[in-house]
């Protein structure tokens, strides 16, 4: 099973049925599979804070939700994470493409990469870094941990990880 298939399978087996996405090159494959999945309602959003609002609403309506986005979005969503997702205790898995790591061709991506883990740590968001393709096997436990604790959880996925997609 490819990394992309494993991610979608884990989302489905954890009853995640509402996923919003803002695209990134590294995420194109998984977004395509989510869009095709019959068990997941896929709603693209225009900005990641908007997406978190959609996820919060879906969660309150009884659906487990998740967001797929790029690490640059951490800069966009800090207020939403603090005053909506964390303040109201809403579980939110964030599958994040970790641009700006080894193998990155675009210099500007490094500028947010150097802040990504520090910002997540400052927000006290449990953070997992997928570097090798086998790291995907931790996703199931991370999703369970997220819904158990009713917290946002970050899964950073770098270019080395996606080589296995």
């Amino acid at each position, binding site marked *: 099973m490819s990394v992309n298939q494993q991610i979608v399978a884990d989302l489905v087996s954890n009853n995640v049925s509402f996923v919003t996405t803002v695209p990134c090159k590294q995420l194109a494959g998984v977004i395509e599979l989510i869009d095709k999945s019959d068990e997941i*309602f896929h709603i693209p959003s225009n900005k990641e804070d908007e997406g978190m609002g*959609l996820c919060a*609403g879906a969660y*309150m*309506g009884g659906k487990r939700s998740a967001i797929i986005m790029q690490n640059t979005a951490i800069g966009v969503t800090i207020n939403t994470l603090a005053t909506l997702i964390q303040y109201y205790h809403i579980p939110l898995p964030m599958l994040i493409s970790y641009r700006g790591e080894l193998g990155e061709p675009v210099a500007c991506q490094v500028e947010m990469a150097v802040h990504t883990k520090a910002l997540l740590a400052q927000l006290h968001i449990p953070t997992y870094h997928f570097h090798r393709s086998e790291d995907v096997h931790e996703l199931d436990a991370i999703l369970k941990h997220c819904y158990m604790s009713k917290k946002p959880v970050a899964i950073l996925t770098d270019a080395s990880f996606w080589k296995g997609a």
Partner: protein
Amino acid sequence: MIRSEVLKQLIPVISDQLVVCNIGLPSQELHMLDDQPSNFYMLGTMGLASSIGLGLALAQPQKVISIDGDGSILTNFGTLPTIANNVADNFILLIIDNGSYGSTGDQPTYAGMKTSLAAVATACGCEHVVECRAEDAADTVQAALDSKRMTIIVCKCESGNIKVPVIDMDPVVIRDRFMKEISKRNA
């Protein structure tokens, strides 16, 4: 007519509906006028009332009314194409458009100048956009509820505020109470 008077007029129509209410004075006014377990008050995060309401409407069958403001819609403009392209016929977005950022001291918004939110919503692809006068807000929302079609209402009213207490309910209590009410209605 100012926003608090619009809300007062709306209470008989929205009291028993699921309502996601915008941050600041709108939530404080609704809380003071008619606190209900079916109300979700936003204590932070300007701009997301419409997104939360759409997510909720797409996730379950009860009708959902998001009470938003012109300033908040301008903050989260990307919401209108998302709403237009993900039609939920149990969703009503009520934009109370007083042409100002009411909660921060009535600074003017562009919606009170050249920008028409109804025209923007239409251009974004929203199929059922209604602009109404403040005096007609209750009838317009009732008609939208009866129509069983996703409706965007832009209700034009005057700028101005009344004194209202802040909401001292804990956010988790607001969310838990709201979710239990939704589960009860969907049981």
